[in-house]
């Protein structure tokens, strides 16, 4: 718990090893021809890249949920907004190669629009869109959070309004008139900064960028969690009112992590969209946000590494199951969630930690009144 060291030495080493191994994938992908024993397929690399985006979202969620006790059922929205922001650039980058050979994206031509709506202004610039990918979720989170935290909305009340928010955005984005491609969203991207999105080198670079962002975000979150601010956040989670009486303004702290977390999610979304090749409003569906929560819970919340592990585990299993047992995989996944909750209270990471220090098990399950607070 305590400590100004960000990681223990073995943890640093483990992180370095895993990061290096992950960084090796694209090298193997490029260096060896398909069929070679050491070749890593575009599929495998793409999968891994996609999972890293998910992991980044789960990590961001963990900062607000695991540390600060704010259960967001709307992080999928921030993720999707980041993705849409980058998607706008990618749509612009298609240029006149679309079906209708217009400067406008096909869906706008189809809606008989003759010019870009105002909010598309400047989206031809990659960096502007990158900024949007961070700022749009950030500003939305800030405004939403400011009002919600100021009104002292807590617990499930907060969770449910975040869910209402993402649901409302989903419906809004489904509308064709909203100007983001309606149900189909954005797809059929051609190039990014002049490079073909399907070129192996582009993929490798995207992959590496994702890896860098993930590691960077992990270090950032870890640093925050280990700082005194991290302990204040945990105090917000456990006894917010007590915190006020020793002079902290929980609003600011909550707003800080909440906004930061939304921005990290935006980054994850921005990295996600060129790698999977599509963004559409179903990414904003409430179920997607719940899934992010589940990755964090499966991996072990409040641990930062846990959510990353969780995102990989759940999605890895899902990818495997949907191909291996297409008819039955939901049983397996459902069962996994139940078993994890029942037998691994601290998620996957808990298993390993338990071995590490048995003493930690002495921490009792929170007593009844506290849990009521959490529930209410």
């Amino acid at each position, binding site marked *: 718990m305590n400590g100004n060291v960000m990681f223990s030495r073995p943890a640093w080493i483990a992180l370095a090893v895993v990061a290096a191994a992950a960084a090796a994938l694209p090298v193997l992908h490029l260096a060896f021809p398909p069929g070679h024993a050491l070749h890593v397929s575009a599929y495998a690399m793409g999968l891994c890249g996609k999972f890293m985006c998910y992991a980044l979202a789960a990590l961001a969620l963990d900062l607000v949920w695991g540390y600060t006790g704010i259960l967001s059922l709307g992080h999928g929205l921030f993720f999707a907004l980041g993705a849409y922001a980058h998607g706008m650039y990618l749509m612009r980058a298609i240029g006149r190669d679309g079906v209708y050979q217009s400067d406008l994206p096909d869906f706008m031509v189809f809606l008989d629009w003759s010019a870009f709506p105002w909010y598309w202004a400047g989206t031809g610039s990659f960096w502007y869109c990158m900024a949007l990918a961070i700022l749009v979720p950030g500003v939305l989170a800030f405004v939403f959070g400011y009002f919600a935290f100021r009104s002292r909305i807590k617990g499930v009340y907060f969770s449910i309004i975040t869910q209402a928010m993402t649901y409302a955005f989903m419906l809004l984005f489904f509308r064709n008139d909203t100007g983001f491609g309606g149900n189909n969203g954005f797809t059929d991207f051609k190039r990014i900064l002049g490079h073909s999105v399907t070129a192996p080198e582009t993929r490798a670079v995207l992959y590496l960028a994702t890896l860098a962002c993930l590691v960077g975000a992990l270090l950032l979150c870890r640093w925050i969690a280990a700082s005194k601010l991290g302990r204040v956040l945990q105090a917000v989670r456990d006894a917010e009112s007590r915190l006020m009486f020793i002079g902290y303004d929980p609003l600011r*702290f909550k707003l800080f992590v909440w906004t930061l977390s939304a921005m990290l999610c935006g980054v994850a979304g921005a990295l996600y969209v060129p790698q999977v090749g599509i963004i559409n409003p179903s990414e904003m569906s409430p179920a997607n946000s719940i899934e992010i929560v589940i990755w964090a819970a499966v991996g072990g919340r409040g641990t930062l590494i846990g959510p990353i592990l969780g995102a990989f585990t759940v999605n890895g299993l899902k990818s495997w199951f949907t191909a291996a047992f297409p008819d039955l995989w939901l049983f397996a996944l459902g069962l996994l969630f139940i078993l994890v909750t029942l037998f691994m209270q601290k998620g996957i990471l808990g298993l390993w930690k338990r071995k590490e220090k048995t003493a930690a098990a002495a921490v009792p399950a929170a007593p009844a009144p506290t849990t009521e607070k959490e529930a209410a």
Partner: protein
Amino acid sequence: MNSVVKREGLDTAHGVILYLDDVTVSFDGFRALNKLNLEIEVGELRCIIGPNGAGKTTMMDVITGKTRPTSGSAYFGQTMDLARMSEHQIAGAGIGRKFQRPTVFEQHTVFENLELAIRMDKGVRRTLFARLDSAQRDRMADVLRLVRLHGQENRPAGLLSHGQKQWLEIGMLLMQEPQLLLLDEPVAGMSDAETARTAELLNELRGRHSIVVVEHDMGFVAEIAQQGKVTVLHEGSVLAQGRMDQVQADDKVIEVYLGR
């Protein structure tokens, strides 16, 4: 312990640190406080007693911003209108409080509980970059010893016993270095010996901080009140006020509170 640092904005020119003026708090028609008037002087140690439900805790709630008065006003110093300040602003302005039911950060260690309480700028940026300096460390060590939790500093506070939590909360209060300390039943659940220790501690703090203590333990009250004022609350307003021996002899007080 070092003396209280003068805080910005607190104006105690008239020697009074807290004014409660005709404060009324009603809950759905029930008046927990009824036109309560109270003044606490700078450096004073005031004991407040009164029957269960007299409104003592509610009074502290009003002072700390937890409850807003239905009518009347509460001022910290000459200028700070407590009814217009939020809880954290009040705490930041220099009012510290120990709750009747011990409330500590259960998931944090004893050490972290004290660390969080340390007096400093409690903004986001400062907190993010905060490092303990050696003076602060020393102070924490002092306080740990004072509340007799040394050796326990790495235990999660949730694992402490009831009495230990009481102590820890007092410790946090000390770390906060407030100008006005509000102690709601500080010795409830403490053994006689511990009560005596607490009395000693308060006597030590006397003069350096203004202190308001609510207690039902008459022995303890007598020990810390010394020749100072004791206020008796009843049904939301002051029933009697005076030296301990005067109050104890007051018929009304005996009737509603002490019993025969």
